[in-house]
């Protein structure tokens, strides 16, 4: 298990992807899967920085990685605004150019790229987003 607390700024996305990518390599994921995991972690972090900490400065993003023989678990904690993931409409990825909306695409990609995405929030714990990717599920 390893844990890093990042300043919640877009400039740290490179470092966040490296941190997550290194753990994914340890589990033994393929390059394609590592890319997917890094993309999911980036989308999750970007959402936290952009939405949870909207209008705030000095926010922190704590990322805890648990590596096992079969899976990688990523937990992201923030103390920004909480949100209800079920309120994020799934984007229509078949819509025409004029109808296409970009909102919700990050969450959509996270759900497609990872095996599990869960979210919980309480005043004590803050917001916790957990994503799991298992070995051997393909993709």
């Amino acid at each position, binding site marked *: 298990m390893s844990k890093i607390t990042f300043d919640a700024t877009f400039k740290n996305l*490179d470092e966040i992807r490296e941190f997550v990518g290194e753990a994914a390599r340890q589990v033994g994921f393929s390059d394609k899967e590592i890319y997917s995991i890094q993309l999911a972690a980036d989308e999750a972090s970007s959402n936290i920085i952009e939405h949870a900490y909207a209008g705030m400065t000095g926010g922190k993003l704590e990322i805890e990685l648990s590596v096992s023989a079969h899976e990688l678990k990523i937990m992201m904690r923030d103390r920004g605004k909480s949100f209800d993931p079920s309120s994020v409409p799934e984007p229509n990825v078949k819509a025409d150019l004029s109808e296409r909306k970009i909102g919700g695409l990050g969450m959509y990609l996270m759900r497609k790229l990872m095996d599990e995405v869960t979210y919980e929030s309480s005043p004590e714990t803050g917001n916790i987003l957990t994503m799991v990717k298992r070995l051997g599920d393909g993709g």
Partner: protein
Amino acid sequence: MEVTTKRFKNCDMVVLNGRVDSSTAPQLAEALEGVTGSGRYKIVMDMSGLEYMSSAGFRALLASQRLCKRYNRGEIVLASVPERIQEALELAGFTELFKTYADPVDAVGSF
């Protein structure tokens, strides 16, 4: 990320290198606005040197594609899209919105 633009007779080429994420996507948007702002709407994105693109990059491409396709005055086409990025674009349903060419030269020739 590095972004450079080249002007051809019938189109402009935007060459992307490195990684596009929420931190660097504004540079991509700015480069595209530089081209469209000069009244040119036929754009080839040379993505051969691109290592990574998140939905922040997709968002920049989508906004410019809308602008370029308005009044049928042009469009953005993609060239030499690396496999990983192609897969992410497919997942997001973006491959329906952009013509894709294996070679930037063919993409330029399409205009």
